């Protein structure tokens, strides 16, 4: 596979066949909690996508130019989190300053995003899989979009279930998990569509 196409292949794979939520189970907590409404889900999903794309790129740079040369790879957990937290803090301040509307829409989500395991997970995976910068960026972007796709699909389904009769034990998290299970199965159908080798 040529150098140019690999990032694109990773991009599509991270949305469909290796969806960070449905295949790697990352980002579930906020996924289950927020997916009750389509609008809020969309808001959170977009915020996650933005932060993910930016932080995987930033973390790649930090890893390549700071951690590796000084043989400090084992500190990556600490460093990546600081980068993510600092970035989110920065974004929050920028949004607060320049757009009241956007701040109201997205503001509450930002602290939630800092602890979203998918964001940290994306950076950690990028290191393990030894991606290049371009690939990392597309991986982050794709993973975010995949997460967005999953949460919006989930919200859409859950909204429709509001009038359905669900057994007591399954209300809330239970039924959400079952839906997620079926979605994961459905996404598995995309396997083989794109081969990365």
């Amino acid at each position, binding site marked *: 596979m040529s150098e140019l196409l690999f990032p694109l292949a990773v991009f599509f794979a991270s949305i469909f066949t290796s969806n960070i939520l449905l295949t790697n189970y990352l980002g579930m907590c906020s996924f289950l909690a927020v997916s009750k409404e389509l609008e809020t889900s969309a808001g959170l999903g977009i915020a996650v996508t933005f932060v993910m794309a930016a932080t995987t790129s930033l973390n790649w740079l930090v890893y390549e130019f700071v951690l590796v040369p000084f043989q400090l790879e084992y*500190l990556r957990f*600490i460093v990546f989190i600081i980068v993510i937290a600092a970035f989110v803090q920065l974004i929050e301040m920028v949004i607060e300053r320049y757009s009241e509307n956007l701040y109201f829409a997205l503001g509450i989500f930002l602290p939630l995003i800092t602890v979203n395991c998918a964001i940290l997970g994306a950076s950690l995976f990028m290191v393990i899989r030894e991606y290049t910068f371009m690939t990392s960026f597309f991986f982050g972007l794709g993973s975010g979009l995949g997460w967005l796709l999953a949460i919006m699909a989930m919200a859409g389904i859950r909204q429709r279930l509001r009038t359905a009769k669900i057994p007591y034990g399954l209300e809330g998290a239970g039924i959400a998990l079952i839906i997620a299970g079926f979605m994961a199965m459905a996404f598995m159908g995309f396997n083989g569509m794109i081969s990365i080798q």
Partner: protein
Amino acid sequence: MKTQSFYAKRIQPIVFMAVVTIICIILTAALHLYTYDQVKENEQFFVWRSVLDSAAISHDGTPSDVVKLFDQYVTEDGDMYVVNTPEHGRRFVLEQTGPGLWGPITVMIGFEDDKTTLSGVSIVSQTETPGLGARIEEPWFTAQFAGKKGPSFKLVEEGTASQPKEIDSITGATRTSDAFKSIIEKAFVLAGGL
């Protein structure tokens, strides 16, 4: 309520963070340095053990045994390992790395002296899906390669391999199985050029 001074509001949090960060880094750096040698030893153990396994030299799995046998029978020659034993003659072990589903898979591939028959394969490192792709490390999977002649193979459903060129794939890990097959086949190309 007294409004916070400039120091308290802006500077103190940063100072606090910096102090905590430094303490954390010191703690982790200390532990890292303390275990550094052990970690390096472990890594080398995995590599050497794989060399022995792919050359079909039996050992009891302990580091001391592996080191002893490695020193006794193996010499490193550039990119490959030459293994000389009285029972099996000369074998070559090549290290080959290829992309797996999640990350690189590194495999030691052992060839008999004729450079076309496999003596065995052994996985040095992989990061595939636990319980699925990661099963390439299981003995039944790697054992099926011993004695096979390449240079190309065919993946079949798990448990149905019968022909010499057929390999059992892993149910639910099609792509990892594919990736692994590619790695083995590439090694044949390399071996041919030795």
